[in-house]
């Protein structure tokens, strides 16, 4: 609509301003997830990760979280669960880093790797359980999974590529079967 007409018609002016206020409100909603991702990035930096690497992943994670929250719908609903589910793969390696290595049958492995895989399993389990209550459960799982993986990557870099791949694979392997095996509840949102 033409600007001069908007200025003249009080209803159209109110509609335009209300719409802008709505969009601003949606953006404001993304502040909490953005702050969470900032916290995750700081944890990653405290693990001694390369600042550039942690910064890039943290920034990407924050952008996705804000975008999903702003757009709303199923991806918007998956933001906080996704970030919460991403905490185990972020924190487990951090908690195990002081332990060092474990050795079985002649070979030694980093406990960080174990922390990443087990963190991924817990994240997948949590997301799978939460997704069962949603109507678009796979969209919810994919959206939450992206965020959980991003958060996990911030912690699992210390276990190298194997840790990152192991965490991602564990997340998928523990979440998808839960969804496949559970029936869709009638009151799903």
């Amino acid at each position: 609509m033409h600007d001069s007409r908007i200025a003249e018609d009080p209803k159209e002016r109110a509609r335009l301003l209300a719409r802008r206020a709505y969009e601003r409100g949606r953006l404001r909603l993304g502040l909490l997830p953005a702050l969470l991702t900032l916290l995750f990035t700081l944890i990653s930096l405290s693990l001694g990760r390369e600042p550039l690497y942690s910064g890039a992943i943290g920034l990407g994670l924050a952008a996705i979280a804000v975008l999903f929250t702003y757009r709303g719908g199923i991806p918007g609903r998956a933001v906080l669960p996704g970030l919460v589910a991403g905490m185990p793969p972020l924190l487990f390696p951090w908690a195990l880093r002081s332990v060092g290595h474990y050795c079985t049958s002649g070979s030694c492995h980093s406990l960080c790797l174990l922390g990443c895989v087990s963190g991924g399993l817990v994240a997948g389990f949590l997301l799978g359980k939460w997704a069962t209550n949603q109507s678009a459960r796979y969209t919810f799982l994919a959206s939450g999974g992206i965020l959980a993986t991003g958060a996990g990557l911030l912690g699992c870099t210390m276990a190298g590529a194997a840790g990152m791949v192991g965490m991602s694979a564990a997340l998928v392997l523990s979440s998808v079967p839960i969804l496949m095996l559970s029936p869709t509840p009638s009151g799903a949102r």
Partner: protein
Amino acid sequence: MIRLADGDRTAFDPIFTALWPLVLRFSERFLADPRDAEDAAQTALIKLFSHISDFDPERDALAWALGIAAYECKTLRKKKQRRRETAGEVPIEADERAGPESLASQRETEAIVREILSTLSEKDRELVLMHMEDRRPPGDDATFRKRLSRALRRFKLNFTGGPNDA
């Protein structure tokens, strides 16, 4: 409302279209000046849509919207009252000891008087205000009385909705 709170933009227009006339009419009952009512309704809807993501589905959506509108009307009314007082306009005193109904009626009369004053020409308005404040200009008293009498006649006609009302 729930859909919009969840980010479904297609729900914006139907909700706005449904709420605007209701909130506007509600504000018009609160405020005598239709422009003020429009401002209050606009501000109320801006606030409502800005915080709609926090909307609680258990709540009555209309009651929520009208609650915000009522708050905006009260705020606007207070703001105008304060502006009038700081501008040194003649306050049409409401007796604070009177009951709430009487007080509301006095406030309504005040608003009507101010509205009619705003329809008069600047000269007439100045004369009527001088008369209300019991002031007299220096100079010819007879001319002043003649002009005041004409201004008061126009004021009364506007007040009673007479032929000069248009």
